């Protein structure tokens, strides 16, 4: 055993860079439909990002003095963070509640979460007028400790570190770094526990960002419970995303999976559907309490009231019922449909709060420019490219190498 390990390390030293170089080369077909569509969009997006830094934010966006946060914050950050919530929920289920059934999808979910956070922070940097000054948040004597955004920023940053630690064993396995892998295994629980705590706080913190906008957000959407509402929403938003992503990646990366994986995954999906139904029910109850407590009846009889009811009935109650029936009848198609409706509902709610019902009384409306859409797509596409690159190389979907179990 010892000899084997030494020879392995020698081997690694000699071939490390060769190995990295060979891994950098593309694997798989180049002219897939996804590549053909995403590449041109990404190229245009990069040009727009260049123009944004050359001519200022106003040159490529429709942001104005009334709407300082547009699509890049409203979708990429406020919505995207909810979609990345699956990582902390699954980590909680597998590593804290010890639900082994969900372990096969843990790594890919954590990876998704980490990449989502990484690229959403990139989107955030694009939106900052003076991005270099972000250093003032991290070091120096300029801490704005009474700022919600300060606390969100720090919890966000530390959580990215926790996610990186949670995923790092896969990187160590890929590099064949046994000692590193063993070490990373020992600090896992700390990363898990703090990761969940940091998640609960920054997920709710995103809602708390809007607490001071009490005059600007339509009363049907504003409440002092925004932080709680956002953290509950992040549970079903994250899990619905896991259902959708899992369903897609099991088709795309089928060759990475062992047999049985399919049945296993289907049973996981049914379990996740149950969680979604429960979380949506909790969310609905919270929203009803907030609605009744706020005496909001008078606002219902208006266009905005209808818009609100559409969100509540079409995108909370409807997916909740579909999830409920689909897990009882183990109907996978219905689970996927419900997941998509849930995700659309989360987009609708977060876009409502950050853009649509934000300054609902204004006559002139902000509509994102095409450049804002292209840059948003670019960020999502780059994220998918990186995700694919990693899944093709590291043990994310496929099983860990034999030596991991030997060493344990």
């Amino acid at each position, binding site marked *: 055993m010892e000899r084997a390990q030494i020879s392995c390390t020698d081997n690694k030293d000699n071939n490390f860079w060769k190995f990295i170089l060979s891994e950098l080369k593309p694997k798989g077909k180049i002219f897939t439909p996804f590549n053909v569509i995403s590449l041109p969009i990404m190229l245009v997006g990069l040009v727009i990002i260049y123009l944004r830094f050359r001519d200022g934010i106003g040159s490529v966006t429709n942001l104005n003095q009334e709407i300082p946060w547009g699509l890049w914050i409203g979708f990429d950050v406020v919505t995207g963070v909810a979609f990345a919530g699956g990582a902390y929920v699954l980590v909680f289920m597998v590593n*804290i*509640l010890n639900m082994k059934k969900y372990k096969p999808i843990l790594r890919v979910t954590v990876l998704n979460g980490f990449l989502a956070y990484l690229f959403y922070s990139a989107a955030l940097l694009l939106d*900052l*007028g003076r991005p270099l000054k972000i250093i003032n948040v991290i070091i120096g004597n*300029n*801490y704005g400790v*009474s700022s*919600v955004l300060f606390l969100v920023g720090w919890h966000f940053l530390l959580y990215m570190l926790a996610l990186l630690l949670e995923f790092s064993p896969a990187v160590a396995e890929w590099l064949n770094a046994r000692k590193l892998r063993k070490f990373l295994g020992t600090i896992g629980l*700390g990363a898990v526990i703090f990761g969940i705590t940091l998640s609960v706080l920054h997920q709710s913190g995103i809602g708390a960002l809007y607490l001071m906008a009490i*005059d600007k957000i339509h009363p049907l959407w504003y409440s002092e419970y925004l932080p709680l509402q956002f953290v509950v929403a992040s549970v079903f938003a994250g899990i619905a995303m896991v259902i959708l992503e899992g369903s897609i990646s099991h088709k795309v990366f089928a060759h990475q999976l062992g047999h049985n994986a399919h049945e296993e995954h289907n049973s996981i999906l049914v379990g996740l559907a149950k969680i979604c139904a429960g979380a949506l029910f909790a969310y609905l109850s919270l929203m009803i309490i907030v609605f009744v407590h706020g005496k909001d009846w008078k606002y219902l009889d208006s266009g905005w009231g209808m818009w609100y009811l559409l969100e509540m009935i079409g995108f909370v109650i409807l997916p909740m019922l579909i999830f409920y029936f689909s897990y009882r009848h183990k109907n996978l198609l219905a689970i996927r449909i419900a997941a998509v409706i849930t995700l659309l509902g989360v987009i609708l709610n977060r876009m409502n709060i950050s853009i649509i019902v934000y300054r609902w009384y204004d006559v002139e409306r902000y509509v994102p420019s095409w450049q804002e859409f292209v840059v948003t797509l670019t960020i999502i596409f780059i994220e998918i490219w990186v995700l694919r690159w990693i899944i093709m190389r590291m043990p994310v979907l496929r099983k860990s190498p034999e030596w991991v179990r030997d060493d344990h």
Partner: protein
Amino acid sequence: MSISRRTFFKAMGATAVALSVGKEVAASAEEMTGERPELYGVLYDATRCVGCHGCEYDCAEAHGLEYPDIPKNPPLRKTDEAHLTVVNHYETSKGSLPVKVQCMHCTQPACDAACLTQAMHKTEDGPVIWREDKCMGCRYCMISCPFDIPKFEYQSTNPRIMKCDMCHDRLKEGEIPACVYNCPEEAMMYGKRSDLIREARKRIHENPDQYVDYIYGEHEAGGTSWLYISAVPFEELGLKTSIQKKSYPGLTKGFISSIAPVDILLPLGLLGIYEATRSKPETIEED
């Protein structure tokens, strides 16, 4: 998946200390922005203002901005990144009346509480200023300000947040704000906020027919350094009267004070659940 308990508690202790220190700093910042008798401000008497727009030119000059281009019979205008104050004429129940708009310099400003780098800052003598070396351009101040005052230079590659700073630089040299100094009608008065409120009350008391009995800014958003008195109700002058009377930073207080307890208690709870759900074989292995 295991961690030595000692390391874990060490890490947790460090976090707890860091967070509680953070809270103390927050508390003292809160005290600093609390009501203080020596806060200075400006009393704007809308009944004296004739709407000559002179202050707009003086403001531009004092801040190194281009002179405004004001058309005849101008439509209602808003302040923006190049115009830190504007005078609008409103059709009111007492005819066309002018009113000046600029930063209200709240006693407990939402923008100051929102700012994560202390770029927006309530100075001890009254003005709310923006500090270029600290700002990262996130525009959260613009989201939070109930008066829609901070403006952003969208067309710049190194954009600034632009707003009235009550001529902070002039105040430091013992002068008074440019608009107050130059107003030909003496529609504005610079002084201690408490004195200004007394003066406003006196004017209302001595000429009850000329004024509505209300000082706009005395309680709005928890009190502002800029105070208005007027001949007509303030909504007729386009001022926001729905502004809550409590401070805006108070809206986030509950959330911010719940962070430290969650950061400390939740990890403990999670550790407890982890221990409780651990499967038996693993425990035996470790022992």
